[in-house]
């Protein structure tokens, strides 16, 4: 029998082996090579940039240092700020609209199937298609800005994709302090949750980490000056047009996730709540929303990683090389394939990967653990 179990294992392993090899090379091997490239000067010498086997030199973390503290790479820092703001607003927009749509559908209107299908169809489209249409809709003098004239009002004049206004501005040199405060708040939240779940060890560890981060933020962070001059970044309002199109495309997806969760909440539970005297509004705030919390978390992570990677929608709506609506995913492409600055492009790719991994890896771990327990 033991021998049979071994052949069993071996057969399974051998069948998966080609995939392991392919993913091993194309995902992990290539990430390794990107990481290596980001530590070289590949592209600094134009004659070597496109050579089949370019001569490059190891430069350590110089590329990263330039990206975060170099004078010429301010565009990357603005992109980083843009993508974080964009992600926050995109997640908020999708969750809000998606939840409203799901609740509406959950009320079983007539033509329920039609509405559901209508709200979800943009998800089947390419971001390039969406971007092409919305680009036309959001032209400064037409489309959406002409809508008020249909009811006799003067046309709007907002530059959905061209606005030069920047809001929520801050100096890059304050970033260490801002980051410290955010991390401290997050750790404090972890401690509070652990305390409520009676996980003493985790609560104490998180509380200790909070204190350490607060101390660092107050004591050391103000002295860290990444740049020798103030450099202000913020949220470019030219992203609003892209946000509208992105929410249009992904709100239905969020609705579908919520609907899957809503059908799992039994009718009895809702009726019981109504019998107990809960108003319709309370049924939602006290029972349904808390039960949907895990779905909200999943949706936030899925939408978040889509948003950090967003490339095609911005490309189609504002062009690939538009400083006001740039994101790191586009800058990596431009830097590498238009500018032939491969080492710097690789470094941007690595930063992007780290940001995505930061939200996806914990999620994947908890999902797989949950799956194993079922």
């Amino acid at each position, binding site marked *: 029998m033991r021998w049979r179990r071994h052949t069993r294992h071996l057969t*399974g*392993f051998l*069948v*998966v082996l080609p*995939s392991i090899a*392919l993913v091993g090379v194309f995902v*992990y091997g*290539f*990430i390794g090579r*990107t990481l290596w490239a980001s530590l070289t000067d590949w592209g600094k010498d134009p004659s070597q940039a496109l050579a089949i086997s370019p001569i490059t030199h190891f430069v350590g973390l110089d590329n990263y240092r330039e990206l975060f503290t170099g004078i010429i790479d301010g565009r990357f820092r603005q992109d980083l700020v843009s993508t974080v703001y964009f992600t926050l607003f995109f997640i908020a927009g999708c969750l809000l*609209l998606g939840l409203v749509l799901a*609740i*509406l559908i959950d009320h079983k*209107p007539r033509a329920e199937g039609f*509405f559901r299908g209508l*709200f979800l*169809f943009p998800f*089947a*489209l*390419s*971001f*390039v298609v969406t971007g*092409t249409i919305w*680009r*036309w809709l959001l*032209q400064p*003098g*037409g489309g959406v800005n*002409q809508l008020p004239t*249909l009811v006799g009002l003067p046309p709007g004049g907002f530059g959905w994709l061209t606005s030069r206004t920047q809001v929520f501005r801050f100096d890059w040199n304050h970033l260490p302090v801002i980051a410290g405060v955010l991390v401290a708040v997050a750790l404090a939240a972890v401690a509070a949750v652990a305390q409520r779940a009676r996980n003493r060890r985790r609560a104490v560890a998180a509380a200790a980490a909070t204190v350490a981060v607060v101390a660092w933020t107050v004591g050391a962070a103000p002295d860290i000056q990444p740049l020798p001059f103030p450099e202000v970044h913020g949220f470019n309002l030219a992203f609003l047009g892209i946000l509208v199109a992105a929410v*249009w495309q992904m709100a239905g997806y969020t609705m*579908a*996730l919520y609907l*899957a969760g809503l059908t799992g909440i039994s*009718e009895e539970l809702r009726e019981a*709540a109504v019998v107990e005297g809960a108003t*319709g509004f309370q*049924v*939602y705030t006290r029972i349904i929303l808390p039960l949907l919390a895990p779905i909200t978390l*999943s*949706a936030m992570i899925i939408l978040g990683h889509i948003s950090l990677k967003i490339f*095609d929608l911005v*490309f*189609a709506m504002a*062009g690939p090389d538009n400083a006001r609506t740039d994101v*790191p995913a586009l800058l990596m*492409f431009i830097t*590498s394939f238009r500018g032939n600055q*491969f080492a710097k492009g*690789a470094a941007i*790719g690595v930063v992007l990967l780290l940001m*995505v991994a930061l939200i996806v*890896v914990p*999620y*994947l771990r908890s*999902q*797989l653990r*949950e*799956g*194993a327990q079922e």
Partner: protein
Amino acid sequence: MTGPIGSAGRWRWLMYLALCLAASFFLMPVYMMVVTALKDPSEISLDTAWRLPTVWNWATFPAAWEAFVPKLQNSFVLTISASAASAIIGSLNGYVFAKWPFPGSRIVFALILFGMFIPYQSILIPLFGFIRSIGLYGSIWGLVVVHTVYGIPITTLIFRNYYVGIPDSLVEASSLEGAGFFAIYRHVVFPLSLPGFVVVVIWQFTQIWNEFLFAVSLSNPASQPITVALAQLAGGEAVRWNLPMAGALLAAVPTLVVYVVFGRYFVRGLLAGSVKG
């Protein structure tokens, strides 16, 4: 059956009002796309964008069709080959992970899954070099290879979750009768796989058809898929907007047909994308 708020009936008109507002938000771009596509270029101007065309310019579609047919062909070849290849690989992988786990298979599964979340910018430079070195840069087959490989994580995930639902007793019964790994796959698992294949193929078809980053980095004008051609047409200076709109419609039709015909399976694939291993 009604939800908790609407049961009173008094406020149901409010629900319908909200639904209609939402519907018009979702339909607005569709209306604009069709109306603009059917206008004569001379009639397209920003302040009359919402009006119906005075003369219906059906000639836009033959023009767009002619410009886009080679790109549509590229997209079809790419999408069908890569969807089929990644579905077959994913089915075998899913079968192993669900029914023939080996020591360490859980961690291998997790490592494979991570591949579907990575930003492809983090592998694009070596990938570009690799595709160029094997002589497939600018060829549609280079893109087929790329989409097959990067499709493995999601197809493996969907099939694994699907096969977990097949009772172990079925597999064990055939195993006791002396059937081996492949015999069980062929006679027991594969015949039950049709819904799984539908979900996976639909998902992959939509994803690959709509994909842009690989397409724009690894193709040349001859091997361009439709998304790249559309982005270039719409991104040019002084565009006549009827053509991009017709092109957008052409690029959208295949995935929309899939969505309308196979809606139920489409939603299943979408939900599978949120993991649960």
